[in-house]
């Protein structure tokens, strides 16, 4: 039985899409875990896993309401706090139950919160990270989601963002930059080679992310209609072109196409098409795949030569690629495909101006608010582990486990029984 105004086909697809997006968080954990040293694998993975708990709870308590209740310019209301009034009736403007709409959006908040952890792995204490995640998911993600999707000022202005270039990609990328600057570099950064310990994890993680991204972009039309089909197909085309471009650049520069580079390219391509998925034609989506590779590739080459230890390059892969996608819409949006708006090339130069506003506003807010949250937490507790603990590895220090325990020399611990 369904409520009036519900389309069962749309609802069926959105149920599946929600599960697809949820998979992206452990996939991201795997991707990140492969990129760190073997003594920090579990801690890095746990930062993503923790988001499944922290961001789901904050989203249900207040985050969803602040993002999607009412149409205040800056922030939503508290009318849906604690899921009040979120039930089986259709969410305004969709044909799916409000409760399902909430869950779909929750998976976005979770994966975005997990994304930011890439900037602070291998040195941040786990407790303060949990506090940071909780605050970030509300103060940064929910606010940016309101601006772009929930009736906030960017949406009112006419900014086009199909699946989250503003809150997810630019939000996480520029927050990561702020987090890396406030928390500071790892003690050995720039002194020793700090290499990925398992490239296979990285590739499998990227593959699972791409799989999940079909739900992420394909579900952002909230239906099984044209916009979703277009977004779904573009999610195939763009990352494929980014992957090809990345390998060609690798071959030209170093004569070898790198595997971790290829995994990175998949993520960059998925990010690039995220805001544009339902707005540009498949042919332009392929062009976007090529274009999006260039600035992200450049930033990934440049960043490790700086003092900024933005460890897993969230800024390059998400911030910069998301920014590229948002601007690309301003040029190549095509009303004959999306039924909403044209970009500069199809006769509406104003759309590019609107996209440019989002590109300035979202990163600025994400950067400043993230820096503020971390500075605030650091007034009460230390953000980092000690140098000795950092040398020992955070798996043992924060979790009392090793990822690759051999069991040699491990004695069963007998507790006294009464």
């Amino acid at each position, binding site marked *: 039985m369904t409520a009036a105004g519900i389309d069962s086909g749309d609802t069926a697809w959105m149920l599946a899409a929600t599960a697809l997006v949820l998979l992206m968080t452990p996939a991201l954990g795997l991707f990140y875990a492969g990129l760190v040293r073997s003594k920090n694998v579990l801690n890095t993975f746990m930062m993503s896993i923790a988001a499944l708990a922290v961001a789901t709870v904050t989203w249900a308590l207040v985050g969803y309401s602040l993002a999607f209740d009412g149409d205040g310019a800056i922030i939503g209301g508290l009318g849906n706090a604690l899921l009040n009034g979120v039930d089986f009736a259709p969410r305004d403007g969709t044909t799916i139950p409000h409760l399902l709409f909430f869950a779909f959006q929750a998976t976005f908040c979770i994966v975005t919160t997990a994304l930011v952890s890439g900037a602070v792995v291998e040195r941040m204490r786990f407790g303060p990270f949990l506090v940071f995640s909780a605050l970030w998911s509300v103060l940064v993600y929910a606010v940016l989601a309101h601006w772009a999707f929930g009736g906030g000022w960017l949406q009112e202005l006419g900014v086009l963002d199909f699946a989250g270039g503003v809150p997810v990609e630019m939000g996480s990328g520029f927050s990561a930059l702020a987090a890396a600057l406030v928390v500071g570099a790892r003690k050995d950064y720039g002194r020793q080679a700090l290499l990925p310990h398992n490239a296979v994890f990285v590739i499998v993680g990227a593959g699972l992310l791409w799989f999940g991204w079909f739900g992420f972009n394909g579900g952002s039309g909230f239906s099984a209609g044209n916009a979703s089909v277009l977004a779904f197909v573009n999610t195939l085309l763009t990352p494929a072109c980014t992957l090809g471009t990345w390998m060609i650049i690798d071959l030209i520069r170093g004569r070898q196409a790198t595997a971790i580079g290829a995994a990175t390219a998949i993520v960059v391509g998925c990010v690039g098409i995220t805001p544009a998925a339902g707005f540009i034609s498949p042919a332009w989506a392929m062009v976007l795949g090529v274009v999006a590779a260039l600035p992200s590739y450049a930033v990934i080459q440049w960043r490790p030569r700086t003092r900024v230890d933005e460890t897993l390059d969230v800024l390059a892969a998400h911030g910069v690629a998301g920014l590229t996608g948002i601007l690309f819409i301003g040029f190549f949006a095509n009303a004959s495909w999306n039924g909403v708006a044209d970009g500069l090339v199809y006769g509406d130069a104003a759309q590019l101006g609107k996209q440019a506003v989002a590109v300035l506003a979202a990163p600025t807010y994400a950067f400043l608010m993230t820096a503020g949250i971390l500075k605030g937490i650091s007034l009460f507790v230390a953000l980092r582990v000690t140098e000795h603990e950092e040398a020992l590895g955070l798996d043992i220090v924060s979790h*009392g486990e090793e990822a690759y325990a051999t069991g040699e020399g491990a*004695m069963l611990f007998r507790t006294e029984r009464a």
Partner: protein
Amino acid sequence: MKLVIGIVRPEKTNDVLEALFRADIRGLSMHRVQGHGGELERVETYRGTTVSMELAEKVRFEIAVSDQWVQPTVDALCAGARTGEGSVGDGKIFVIALEQVVRISSGQTGDDAVTPVPR
């Protein structure tokens, strides 16, 4: 000729290598070992099974040197491996006499075989 064996914390491996190279000591081998040197056992928990890790991960360096290089080698190992916390677990250095050394490529023996070939 002496064989200098240094057993150090794995997290100090890079510092030790750096100290050895700074002291111009080339020609070494290293491997990962597990051992017990009187340090406190670490407790880990896996799904309700709590274990104490009696053996700690260490890295063992082996460096064959001529007699006048023994002290610089020992000094470099200490400089690189000491954490300065005064706690148990920084490792040990053993120096033992070497009877014979042969460089396989040239057949050189004795001190010539442990002196690096100039590049």
